[in-house]
């Protein structure tokens, strides 16, 4: 059809505002149609843009999995590491150069299962990094295995008769370990997600944003929930926003209400603030602060 061909040519010349922030030479990305990950990337790029941080000072670290590929698409210094080890890698980047804004973007399996130990300890230390945990309730890249977030009764390839293991409530986990900022949004709530990313980036200390995201190819299909679009519709109808909710109440059951919101915002000394503060007390004036700042 000539009409459409014209449209294509015309619009291809137009640069998408995101093109500057992405590695367009790697597009199209590997994610399936109706996957929400592209939306998360947009929100993160928008939040970075909004935050006014120089992109030269931003480092994005991912682990392994579908979300693990995020680092490969954002045009900042980006590190695609090993499975589960994005947080300690990010910790190394942050500690070796505290001026860097270090962001971890990874999946629920990567951060909460294989990387669970690093997650809780980074939160406990209040390491000044931002963690975006994209939760699609399943191991998608490897073909739909049960995740530590898979809701009870949901089907997974390694829970072929439905999941009987209770899942983690990620905001509660982060809260109980002392995270400075904890929020949960869905990839449909894109404006709020963008705001949350910006707030998380600004919050000193360990900040976590969980993003509930549709996986059409595995989670939706295995559980006969339609496509990613149907999951967005489900979020539209079944998400409740409750800022400041008790994080203990944030369990996600199979196809039931999902509570979203900003749950925790607290100011606690970060790892480097504590280090500089304490050594300042111990060594007095002889001590040259490492991060160049003492806690407020």
């Amino acid at each position, binding site marked *: *059809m000539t009409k*459409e061909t014209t*449209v*294509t040519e015309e*619009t*291809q010349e*137009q640069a*998408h*505002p*995101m*093109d500057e922030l*992405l590695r367009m030479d790697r*597009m*199209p*990305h590997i*994610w*399936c*149609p*109706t*996957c*929400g*990950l*592209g*939306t998360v*990337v*947009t*929100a993160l790029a*928008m939040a970075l843009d909004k935050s006014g941080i120089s992109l030269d000072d931003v480092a994005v670290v991912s682990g392994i999995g579908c979300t693990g590929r995020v680092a490969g698409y954002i045009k900042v210094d980006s590190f695609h590491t090993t499975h589960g080890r994005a947080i300690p890698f990010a910790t190394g980047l942050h500690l070796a150069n505290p001026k860097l804004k270090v962001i971890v973007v990874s999946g629920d399996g990567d951060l909460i299962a294989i990387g669970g130990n690093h997650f809780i300890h980074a939160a406990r230390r209040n390491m000044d990094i931002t963690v975006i945990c994209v939760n699609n309730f399943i191991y998608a890249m490897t073909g739909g295995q049960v995740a530590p977030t898979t809701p009870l009764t949901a089907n997974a390839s390694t829970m072929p008769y439905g999941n009987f293991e209770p899942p983690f409530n990620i905001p509660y986990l982060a809260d109980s370990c002392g995270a400075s900022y904890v929020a949960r949004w869905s990839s*449909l709530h*894109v*404006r709020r997600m*963008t705001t949350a990313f910006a707030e998380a980036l600004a919050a000193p200390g360990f900040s976590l944003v969980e993003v509930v995201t549709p996986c059409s190819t595995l989670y939706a299909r295995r559980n006969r929930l*339609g*496509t*990613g*679009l*149907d999951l*967005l*519709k489900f979020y539209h109808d079944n998400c409740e926003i409750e800022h400041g909710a008790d994080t203990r109440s944030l369990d996600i059951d199979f196809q039931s209400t999902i509570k979203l919101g900003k749950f925790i915002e607290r100011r606690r000394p970060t790892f480097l603030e504590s280090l500089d503060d304490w050594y300042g007390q111990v060594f007095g004036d002889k001590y040259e602060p490492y991060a160049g700042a003492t806690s407020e």
Partner: protein
Amino acid sequence: MPQDLPSTPKSTKMKYWRKPLDADKVKVPHGELHIIVNRCKGCLFCVEYCPRDVLQMSEDFNVKGYHYPEVKEDDACVNCQLCELLCPEFAIFCVEKEEEGGGENES
């Protein structure tokens, strides 16, 4: 739920349930949509969630073999950019058009 040809959503979600008192004073922006057809994977997010029902799916296919969105009502876009934010393929974006007067064309 298998999708055949995508249907245009019927709802007009953003209809005011009462007219704002300052409706005649508020300038409603207009947006110009740009669709990078060959990036689209036909997820329908933009079509479904456009608050002004500006978009519909094409009957044609792009080079990847997906239906892609096209503008149904040229003037209806208010440049809210929700489609741009939601699009997982960086395939659609809005640019604000020149302002044209007040809100009398709004209901």
